[in-house]
């Protein structure tokens, strides 16, 4: 069963007077529970593709179906709902809320959802923080954590809502190799245990071994699926 279906996806950016064709007609289907790596050189369109799938950017042309919904025609409010309920995002630069500590950052999406009690939310966040090995740092602010620790918090936050898809844009780019491997191990473990679909982009060939499927992208087009 496909959780993502993309057909003829094009994305153009206006850069001054010129138009940059970031995606030139991408067709892609992603099965639920898969662990996919998108590889390609810088500027190939990896981040743009993840942003469109993650409802962070909109398509210029084509269709993008996430779960049961075609996302290209949705309102801002609906798109935000999809981001909150169906998608978890791990950014390259470990974007955390600086004024909240580790556990509060992880709780943040659940508090936005307003579906569970504070006790339940706290319990779930603690479990995930424990899962990513940051129990001792639960009350530390992002500024008091290392890069790897922050990325783990981001992973915990991405998973706390039990999303259908977790998108990670070069999650190891700013980490040393050991920490990067720990993060990828963690993602693979979560994929195995939680059956969450993971799509991560990278231009590091060493991390490909973690993916069950690799999609190569070049000049805005998928050139190889393996």
């Amino acid at each position, binding site marked *: 069963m496909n959780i993502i279906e993309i057909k003829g996806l094009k994305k153009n950016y206006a850069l001054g007077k010129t138009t940059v064709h970031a995606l030139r007609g991408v067709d892609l289907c992603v099965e639920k529970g898969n662990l996919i790596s998108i590889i390609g050189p810088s500027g190939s369109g990896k*981040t743009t593709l993840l*942003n469109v799938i*993650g409802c*962070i*950017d909109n398509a210029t042309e084509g269709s993008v179906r996430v779960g049961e919904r075609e996302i290209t025609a949705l309102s*801002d*409010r609906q798109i*935000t*709902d999809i*981001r*909150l*309920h169906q998608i978890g*995002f791990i*950014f*390259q*630069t470990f*974007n*955390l*809320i*600086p*004024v*909240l500590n580790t556990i*509060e950052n992880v709780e*943040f*999406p659940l*508090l*936005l*959802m307003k579906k569970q009690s504070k006790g339940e939310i706290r319990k779930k966040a603690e479990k995930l923080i424990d899962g990513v090995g940051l129990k001792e740092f639960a009350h530390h602010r992002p500024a008091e954590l290392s890069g790897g620790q922050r990325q783990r918090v981001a992973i915990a*936050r991405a998973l706390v*809502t039990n999303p259908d898809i977790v998108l990670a*844009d070069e999650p190891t780019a700013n980490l040393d190799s050991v920490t990067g491997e720990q993060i990828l191990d963690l993602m693979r473990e979560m994929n195995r245990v939680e059956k969450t679909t993971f799509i991560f982009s990278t231009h590091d060939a060493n991390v490909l071994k973690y993916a069950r499927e690799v999609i190569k992208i070049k000049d805005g087009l998928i050139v190889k699926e393996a």
Partner: protein
Amino acid sequence: MNLIIKIAWRNILRHKGKSVIIGVILFLGALIMTVGNGVISGMDLGLRENIINCFTGDAVIISDKQQSDNVFLEMMGKAVEPVFNAVDIKKELDKQNYVSRYLPVGKNMALVLNEDGGSMGHALLMGVDFEKYRAVFPGNVKPIEGRLPAQGEKGALVPTGARKQAFDFMNIWFIPEQETLHIANLTPEALANKDNLSLKRSLVLMGFNDDNSTSDIRLGIKGVIKYKALNHVWGNFVIVDIESYRQCLGYFSASEKAVELPADQKSLLALDNANLDDMFSDNSLIVKDVKKTAVPQKIGHFTATAVQPVDIDAGAYNMVLVFFKRGVQLDQGLKNLNAALKAANLGAHAVSWKSSIGPIGNMAVLIKAALFVFVMFLFFVAIIIIVNTLSMAALERTSEIGMMRAVGAKKGFISNMFFGETAILSGVFGGAGIITGIIAVKLLTLSHITSDNDMIQLLFGGDTFRPFLSAGDIGIAIVQLAIVTGVAVLYPLKVARSITPLDAISRD
């Protein structure tokens, strides 16, 4: 909501510099706004106490023939039209349930004659029934020399301003009857000229009558007075008993009433005086039986009228000062009063106290408006600075806001977070500003700042600076602060709401 407050509060602490800048602006804005409100309210209260309650009343009823509404301070000294039917006006006023009290008054100018033969001066006369005046304006005048007149007593109360003016123009120094010179009360100029002062215990007034004739009267000075407030403004109004006033201005007085003349006197008046010889001829009624008829009848007539009580209000006045009951709006009261006067066809109408004092009333309104504009200007400046600072703060937090949006925060959450921050700053710093403003107003009131300057006295609403804050004023300050906060946060909110997750990623 807890999450929003938590984030807002921590963001305030995180961005201390900006928070302090916005906080200080809000503090100063709220402080100046509160003090400004206090000054405006104090001025309002002062004007009410010192002009309305001490001099004009809420409304002034004047003759329909009166051209200018400025009946008190007409610069050209134009005569105020007389009102001959004060008794009827009083009857009408008694029917109005929104009227608390009233006082018929004569007001006009008269020349002060110089018995020493030098130049003449002038005086603004207020003709009143002393007893009624004291009942309507209790404690309004205080004798610094002499005393207030007894009931029915004739005489004048000379205020310090009029005495100074008489000295400046005529070198005359008025003192009350049976009093000696009070050196301590002399002006510096009078003191310097002490040995040459011409002391006078009575006023010789010359009033101008409607028929272009004049009447001179001499009035004993019962007291030299100071008005309770705004003595600098009201200090030229000499208060005289109403009957003397009428005599001076050539109005008919209350004691002059219509009498039925005997037949012989009617005949005398009916004589054709074209031929003066007739008046002294044998046919003249005066010559005929004069000892038998005329003298006994005349004595009898005088004896009869002397014991009859006189209704003092039966004579002429120039205006009736009217006070409305507490809570009655001035405009509404005037409207009702004018409708009643018109319906009764009394040939008189009411004008507001502001109109009756002409330039001073306008000046008071202008000063109040200027203060209001100043406070509004402060609002505007505060809003501009806060808008600018908050907008910059929003843009600087693009990554944070964009990331919040990326993980599912709706625009409403961002709005609430931003508004929460501003509201906390406004509540803490603005609240402190309002409290400090209240304390400042109290301290200013207690400091008893006084001024002799006319303009500053108007700003003060009296001789003493007495800013005043009611609970309503404090409520208004809070509302004003809320409006400033609300307006100031609108544009930054728009900026913050427009930040997308993509903006955050692009910035990284």
